[in-house]
């Protein structure tokens, strides 16, 4: 089941057609941290209750980063057994006191991050987002590359089963971040199994605190136990101390490897009477949990110029210079993000919207405060009127759905202002080259651009330049994308602080 979940979520990131969003979209929405950020009370409560009942099943089944680590652990374990030629596992009990404080500290940092609105803290720590980044920047290019090969083959055979799709724009910051995360995970899984999940991951910490005293949990019967250590070495969470017959249930992720490996039937999973001794630590943790919940609740409540080619001979294609990315004063947020602030507070940088965008207008931002959160640019395409993919997939409430039906969404999209077009006089063809143009006005979907005479002459052959009606412009970028001036268009879109209906 874990593998099925992991595969489906991965497919969600690699999907090139957008078809699977309808089927697997909910899997992204049940992720814990995005659900908390999206103020999705149902999902949050569900996981709190489930964890309090049976422990951290979430970590071993739902979390894609966790399942991916399980895959690595499997390989590490296999290699280890091959090398040692013994059937004993790779790991051993390791849960020093300070790691407990460390994970609480990290959780606290996250909470402060959420309250203050420093999205970038969230991005670094959220497990689902880390996985999303890895899937987008490392797995997806492979999928695109395979798709390109298939599309070429299909084109040769006149088939329409595969076709070329716009590549997600290459982003160095994203790739480096993902590669570093992946490298850390590979090392940490070899050395310490689910080390990341039990010592760093804030979701793991919260669920661990809840699951520590879960109604049903792993228990070792000291009478039956022969202290062979098989379970301890097999435990990828390093949560079993076989010498003391002790299981740290805040670290246990319900993988049940220990049950399988025990010869003596000494390990069981079930309802356990509360232990008689309540230590001081436990009090602290309860406090911390309560505090976390309070903080979360507070957060939820707050919620150059083109040179004409001389034509002497026939045929051939003019060289087209690639458009370059404008440094926008205010970033453009995807339609549905409501405002830059809302995006910053909710987005966990999982890149699902970036993967889902069929037009290649979304890319991760590199700014420190909104590191890897989506921002828009119109070099290769514009934000097309019929598309609402990003708001459909966002699990974190950073980009909210535009409506219920396709028609409703399209209607809202065509009236939702996400930016404003700015004309750059000195770049414009009629000004710079005395060439008649008007492609921006031709393609403006809201009719916000009118061509007005440049000089005194207002006859049919007069040079005309665009005049933008700011009240009607929605910032879709059709004008910027289709402007013939390269590498910087003569008209470009600036973001606005708060999105609004026009």
């Amino acid at each position, binding site marked *: 089941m874990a593998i099925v979940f992991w595969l489906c979520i991965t497919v969600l990131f690699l999907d090139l057609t957008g078809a699977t969003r309808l089927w697997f979209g909910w899997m992204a929405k049940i992720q814990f941290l995005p659900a908390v950020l999206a103020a999705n009370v149902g999902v949050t409560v569900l996981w709190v209750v489930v964890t309090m009942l049976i422990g951290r099943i979430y970590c071993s089944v739902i979390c894609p980063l966790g399942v991916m680590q399980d895959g690595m652990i499997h390989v590490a374990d296999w290699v280890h057994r091959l090398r040692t030629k013994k059937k004993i596992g790779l790991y051993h009990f390791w849960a020093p006191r300070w790691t407990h404080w460390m994970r609480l500290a990290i959780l606290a940092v996250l909470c402060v991050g959420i309250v203050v609105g420093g999205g970038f803290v969230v991005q670094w720590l959220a497990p689902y987002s880390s996985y999303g980044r890895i899937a987008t920047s490392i797995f997806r290019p492979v999928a695109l590359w395979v798709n390109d090969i298939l599309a070429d083959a299909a*084109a040769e055979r006149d088939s*329409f089963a595969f*076709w*070329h799709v716009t590549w997600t724009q290459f982003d160095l910051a994203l790739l480096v971040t993902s590669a570093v995360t992946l490298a850390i995970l590979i090392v940490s899984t070899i050395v310490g199994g689910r080390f990341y999940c039990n010592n760093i991951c804030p979701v793991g910490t919260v669920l661990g605190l809840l699951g520590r005293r879960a109604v049903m949990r792993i228990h070792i019967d000291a009478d039956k136990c022969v202290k062979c250590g098989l379970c301890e070495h097999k435990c990828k969470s390093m949560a079993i101390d076989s010498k003391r017959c002790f299981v740290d249930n805040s670290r246990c992720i319900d993988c049940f490897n220990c049950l399988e490996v025990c010869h003596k039937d000494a390990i069981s999973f079930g309802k356990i009477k509360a232990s008689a001794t309540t230590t001081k630590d436990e009090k602290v943790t309860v406090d911390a949990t309560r505090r976390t919940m309070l903080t979360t609740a507070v957060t939820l409540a707050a919620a150059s110029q*083109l040179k*004409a*080619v*001389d*034509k*002497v*001979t*026939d*045929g*051939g*294609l*003019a*060289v*087209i210079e690639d458009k370059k990315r404008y440094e926008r004063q205010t970033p453009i947020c995807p339609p549905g993000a409501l405002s830059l602030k809302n995006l910053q507070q909710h987005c966990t940088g999982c890149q699902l919207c970036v993967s889902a965008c069929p037009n290649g207008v979304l890319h991760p931002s590199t700014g420190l405060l909104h590191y890897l959160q989506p921002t828009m640019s119109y070099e*290769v*395409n514009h934000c*097309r*009127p*019929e598309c609402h993919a990003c708001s459909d997939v966002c699990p974190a409430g950073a980009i909210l759905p535009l409506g219920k039906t396709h028609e409703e969404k399209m209607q809202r999209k065509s009236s939702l202002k996400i930016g404003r077009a700015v004309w750059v006089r000195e770049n414009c*063809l009629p000004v710079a080259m005395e*060439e*008649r*143009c*008007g*492609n921006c006005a*031709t*393609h403006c979907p809201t009719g916000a651009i009118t061509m007005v005479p440049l000089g005194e002459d207002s006859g049919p052959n007069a040079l005309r330049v665009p005049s933008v009606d700011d009240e009607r412009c929605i910032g879709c970028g059709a004008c910027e994308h*289709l402007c*013939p001036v390269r590498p910087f268009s003569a008209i470009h879109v600036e973001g606005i602080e708060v999105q609004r209906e026009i």
Partner: protein
Amino acid sequence: MKQIDRREFLKRFGAAAAVVGASAALESCTGGAGTKVAADAVLGSATSGEKPIGEMTYRLNQKGEKVSLLGYGMMRLPTVPGGSTRPDGNDIDQERVNELVDYAIAHGVNYFDTSPAYCKGHSEEATGIALHRHPRESYYVATKLSNFAPQTWSREASQQMFRNSLKFLQVDYVDYLLLHAIGQGGMDNFNSRYMNNGILDWLVEQKEKGLIRNLGFSFHGDVEVFDTMLKWMDEGKYHWDFVQIQMNYVDWKHAKEQNRRNVNAEYLYGELAKRNIPVVIMEPLLGGRLTKMPVHIVNNLHQRDSRGSVASWAFRFCGTYPGVMTALSGMTYMEHLQDNLRTFCPLEPLTDDDLAYLEEIAQLYLKYPIVPCNDCKYCMPCPYGLDIPSILLHYNKMVNEGTVPNNLQDPEYQRLRKQYLISYDRAVPSVRQADHCISCGMCRPHCPQNIRIPYELHRIAERVEELRRNVLQ
């Protein structure tokens, strides 16, 4: 089925072997006659469903020389797959050009038509290389004074263009020289190109010197220019040894219908026949449009003549008129050349009944909303990087196949929409698609078919935008 396949294979194999043999023999200067017979023997013996290649039909020019009724147009030469690797951007596949020319000459083709403008300016050079391997008297070469660009209007630039032609074609004299595509831009443009700079008189001098053996012109567009040329001939001012016009069974009576600035071929041919001026035909297939017909018409033609190809109808139409000296065909592939040779060796003229039938087909064809682009690429390069012919041809292809999605209620609509958009992206990269046209109008005067290119591009862009938005009514 298997037997036929094997026979077909043997036939192809035999033909290829004959070509190799023919070119080898020609290179060793033993003359083409013997090998031609050998090649024919191979093709002739392997009778399949197709007509065998026999003797070429010839027509006489004003000097009484025999010119093959099938002429080779060097505008659509084969290119190397994957584009040019040479610094000058020449992407012509010279090896294949040589093979095609050898095969054509071995089967009696002796008229080759090129221009300094064709194939991004590399056609003359390629033609020269291919023809130079044959004895000079075994072929006639036609080229043009293609001084379209204003910077080539000066006397010196135009003279240089002619001298370059001799150099690239590797010849001491040109058999046929044409004033290229006069009529476009009216008399003003004609005067700027040939009269004000005294180039026409200079060309007549070159003819007297023997550097040009036949002087003529090719015509597109404004009929005033055509009439003036013939008037000058009647007055004895200039003599035209031949004239090249666009003629085919659609343009015969319907050129003006498609665009009021065009002239019906029936009129042009009639005027030339009256004066016994040999006619060279260009666009007998409308750039292949008369082979890539709507499925319905293709089936209709095959029903009437199961042995002839769709193209053969168009060529037989041209050959039926006795005033036609040669019909040019830009044959890119060996199959085209072989198919045409079957039609012209020998040519079977059409009956009156057939002509009436073709007129019906022409009327049927005009009902389809096809853009009359012949893929001549005169409009290119577009300064804003659009791939104009590819955009128009993709649109035509969808019309011909009947797969333009029209009706949202059609159960097939979603499938057709997907097919249309994907195939459009495959045919034209998105940065070169129709929505990038800014209507600068640079292309318009260059189009010999007088297509309102920006208008058509905007129409196509609008349709694609509708499909993308999925909101077609």
